[in-house]
């Protein structure tokens, strides 16, 4: 019954491959369809809305505007207070429908009808009289405060904080060299394949919501707070969710308008975003760092200072507050640099709102520090990894308190770096690239190291039930939506209980079934949710031992358990199934245990390597992507590798293809014809290794998390590979072929 560490097949695949999956739009509920009238202006005031023609359209039931729905709200979504300190923020909670739209696409009216086509017809017939207001669509312009996104705030700055440690002035004074650095991540669109959707049914004072979300319990809290419905009367059900990458921990105006409409009409209401609507609902990244680093000639990094500027879009979403507060903390990364001064500023702009996206703040921090390391290596003519090795926190300093107070729990970065270099064949690949370049092939090798903060607490819920037939139901507050952590959790439980994995069913994502929960995000699930059910399993097993002892008329100390059998010292045995049945027959019946496990962050790390090849046109392709990671204990290597593959592909996207472009009028390119999500043709070959002797976390599972690793470090490695190929510095993602081509021309001349 060994499951942990094995590439166990995913336990819930069948429905997905057979076409029986149930995403929110697949759920058969008799509901009205909702559609939205959206602002064509980046900033405007609404003088009036005439929807009389729309109401006459066949099949249309109602049209509501902000005036109808906003008064129903008792609050409105603001930042995620579990992780974000509202004191640091200036913001205005979001409404159900905008009365002063603040980005192109901001919904101003909801149209409800019996089918999607009629709703689309009616949307075209709503006449909105807008008074266009001045708009600011670039974050650099927002800083000047000439145009305000929120007059009532008196500023575009939502957040500004200095992150200071050590003695920055002295560090720069004593440096051998001061090197300017820049790192810029353009705006991305997370774009999970399933566009978001919601079905809300309000009946007799109770609200049921089927919701494409990764945080059903927080959604229950939010809807309760917003609409004044007791949380006990709200049931949020997360059906199959077709990817989220952080972007579905997000309450949109559309979601609120759907719930409000359901309450108002007493009918079920459904909204499924089109791809364009999905793309405008959640943008990501978009930040710049400008600063300088102080170094010694031997490569020791002594100081970093600079300004971090972050675009928030038009509203402070549930999750975007994480970025400006976490990026600076993680800028030191795995390195010993102590003197740091970063001013982190986040501004509102008249652009679609920004949410977290796979890695949320660690990709930004990693890009900054890895750009710094690569730039310094160039300036000091040192090898990339030699420079990093010089600065890595040493094993004897662990646990290491970083300059901003984060405690790196376990690891030996230096030994790992040496192991990873071997595995990834760093030296050979470098030599190979040089040789190929001499032959005229434009190839390049890039590496980057990352230290990730993951497995966020503060807690997670886990419950294990063994029923009278011996079946095991595992209930988790984690919310797997593609990662396969349901399988990982089943492995942990199967190993702990020594039962066949087919006996186990993992249940999640229904607030009426799961007592409490936080959800799946931040590479936390297998660590914190997995540990919660592991502990719950052991508690249930303890009780089963007591039942077995009763059946064997023995003391519990005399009974041992292994592989489905409880055995007395004298050799008598009772089976798992018999014990389960007896547990519901005798006194003190029942076999359940629930654990609300508190936990704190842990720090995985790794070295990734990208191989790129560039055509004469400047079009680059990542040919190969190699990863070596210490993610703590690996529960399922096949699932862990799959996370590396997927994250790396998104890293390739961020580095070379994906850019959410906003034109001068604030219009975002909202289709796959304008936003280049990579296809199979753009995919590299992946090779993934995990540390042979991993450093475990304090979690019972010993895991650290792997969900975000490759997107955290991938862009930095790929950008470095492009630099290696063309010999020019790039500080921005994505690098379009045009920029590479220019660099190639520069080099030629």
């Amino acid at each position, binding site marked *: 019954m060994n499951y942990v560490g094995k*590439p166990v*097949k*995913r336990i819930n*695949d*069948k429905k*997905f*491959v*057979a*076409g*029986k*999956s*149930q*995403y929110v*739009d*697949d759920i*058969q509920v008799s509901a009205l369809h909702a559609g939205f009238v959206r602002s064509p202006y980046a900033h405007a005031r609404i003088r009036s809305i005439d929807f009389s023609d729309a109401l006459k359209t066949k099949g249309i039931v109602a049209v509501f505007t902000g005036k109808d729905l906003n008064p129903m709200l008792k609050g409105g979504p603001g930042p995620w207070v579990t992780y974000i300190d509202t004191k640091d923020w200036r913001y205005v909670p979001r409404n159900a429908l905008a009365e002063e739209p603040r980005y192109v696409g901001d919904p101003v009216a909801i149209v409800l009808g019996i089918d*999607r*086509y009629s709703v689309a017809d009616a949307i075209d017939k709503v006449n909105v009289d807008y008074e266009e207001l001045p708009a600011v669509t670039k974050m650099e312009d927002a800083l000047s405060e000439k145009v305000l996104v929120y007059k009532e705030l008196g500023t575009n700055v939502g957040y500004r904080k200095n992150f200071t440690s050590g003695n920055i002035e002295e560090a720069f004074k004593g440096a051998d060299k001061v090197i300017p650095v820049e790192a810029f991540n353009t705006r991305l669109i997370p*774009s*999970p*394949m*399933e*566009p978001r959707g919601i079905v809300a049914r309000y009946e007799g004072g109770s609200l049921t919501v089927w919701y494409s979300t990764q945080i059903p319990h927080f959604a229950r809290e939010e809807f309760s707070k917003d609409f004044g419905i007791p949380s006990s009367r709200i049931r949020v059900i997360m059906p*199959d*969710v*077709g*990817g989220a*990458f952080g972007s579905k921990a997000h309450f949109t105006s559309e979601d609120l308008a759907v719930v409000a409409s359901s309450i108002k009409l007493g009918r079920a209401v459904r909204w*499924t975003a*089109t*791809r*364009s609507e999905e793309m405008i609902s959640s943008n990501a990244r978009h930040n710049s760092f400008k600063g300088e680093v102080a170094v010694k000639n031997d490569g020791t990094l002594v100081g970093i200072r600079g300004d971090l500027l972050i675009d928030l879009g038009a509203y402070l979403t549930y999750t975007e507050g994480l970025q400006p507060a976490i990026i600076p903390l993680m800028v030191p990364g795995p390195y010993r640099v102590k003197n740091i001064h970063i001013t982190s500023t986040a501004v509102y702009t008249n652009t679609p709102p920004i949410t977290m996206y796979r890695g949320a703040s660690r990709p930004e921090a990693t890009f900054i520090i890895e750009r710094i390391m690569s730039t310094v290596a160039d300036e000091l003519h040192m090898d990339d990894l030699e420079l990093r090795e010089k600065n890595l926190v040493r094993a004897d300093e662990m646990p290491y308190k970083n300059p901003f107070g984060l405690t790196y729990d376990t690891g030996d970065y230096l030994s790992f770096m040496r192991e990873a270099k071997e595995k990834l064949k760093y030296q050979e690949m470098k030599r190979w690239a040089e040789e190929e370049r001499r032959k005229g092939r434009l190839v390049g090798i890039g590496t980057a190291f990352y230290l990730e903060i993951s497995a966020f607490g503060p807690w997670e819920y886990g419950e294990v039930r063994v029923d009278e037939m011996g079946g095991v139901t595992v209930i988790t507050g984690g919310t797997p*939506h*593609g*990662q*396969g952590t349901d399988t990982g959790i089943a492995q942990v439980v199967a190993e702990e209980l020594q039962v066949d994995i087919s006996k186990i069913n993992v249940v999640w994502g229904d607030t009426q079934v799961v007592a409490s929960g936080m959800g799946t995000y931040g590479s936390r699930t297998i660590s914190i949710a997995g540990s919660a059910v592991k502990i719950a399993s052991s508690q249930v097993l303890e009780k089963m031992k007591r039942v077995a002892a009763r059946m064997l008329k023995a003391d519990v100390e005399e009974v041992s358990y292994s592989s489905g059998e409880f055995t007395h010292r004298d050799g008598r045995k009772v089976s798992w199934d018999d014990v389960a049945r007896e547990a519901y027959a005798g006194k003190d019946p029942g076999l359940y245990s629930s654990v609300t496990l508190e936990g704190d962050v842990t720090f995985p790390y790794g070295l990734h390597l990208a191989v790129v090849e560039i055509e004469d046109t400047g079009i680059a392709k990542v040919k190969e992507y190699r990863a070596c990671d210490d993610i703590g204990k690996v529960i399922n290597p*096949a*699932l862990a*590798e*799959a996370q590396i*593959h*997927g*994250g*790396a*592909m*998104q890293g390739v996207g961020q580095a070379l293809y994906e850019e959410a472009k906003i034109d001068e009028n604030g219009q975002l390119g909202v*289709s*796959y*014809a304008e936003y280049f*999500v990579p*296809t*199979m*043709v753009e*995919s590299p*070959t*992946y090779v993934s290794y995990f540390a042979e002797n991993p450093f475990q976390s304090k979690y019972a599972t010993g895991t650290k998390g792997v969900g975000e690793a490759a997107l955290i470090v991938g862009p930095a490695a790929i950008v470095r590979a492009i630099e290696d190929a063309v010999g020019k510095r790039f500080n921005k993602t994505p690098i379009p072929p045009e920029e590479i081509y220019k660099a190639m021309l520069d080099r030629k001349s």
Partner: protein
Amino acid sequence: MVNPGEKVKVRVKINGVEYEENVSPRKLLVHFLRDLGFTGTKVGCDTSTCGACTVLLNGKSVKSCTVLAVQADGKEIITIEGIGDGKLHPLQEAFSDNFALQCGFCTPGMIMQAYSLLKENPTPSDEEIKDGMHGNICRCTGYQNIVKAIKEASKVRP
């Protein structure tokens, strides 16, 4: 001929069963299928890019978001629900065996396109798979395991 606003009779065979429905000419095949309960066919974009809606129309893979239901009149459609023949099709098995899915949303379209590809080219190389499958977008897997699954399925003779 039907005038705007009128409906037209559409007779199709879906996964071997005849259906007769009155539909508006503007109704897209993907919505027609989904409204009949064939929700395995997904809508992932609105620009005919992502391929989540791929089905077979008279044996050829098409993006059902870019076909009108009325165009399917008199034709045969196979959806993801129809390839298994009571058990999983080797492609469905191979996707599961090779960890070729994560969130699963693109999976039906991927499998239908792979089915179509293998029909035309029973032993594709990696490059041929990529060339034949780039009309299907996956955001989770990074594609390598999908290529592996298709290759593996190509070796199974059902």
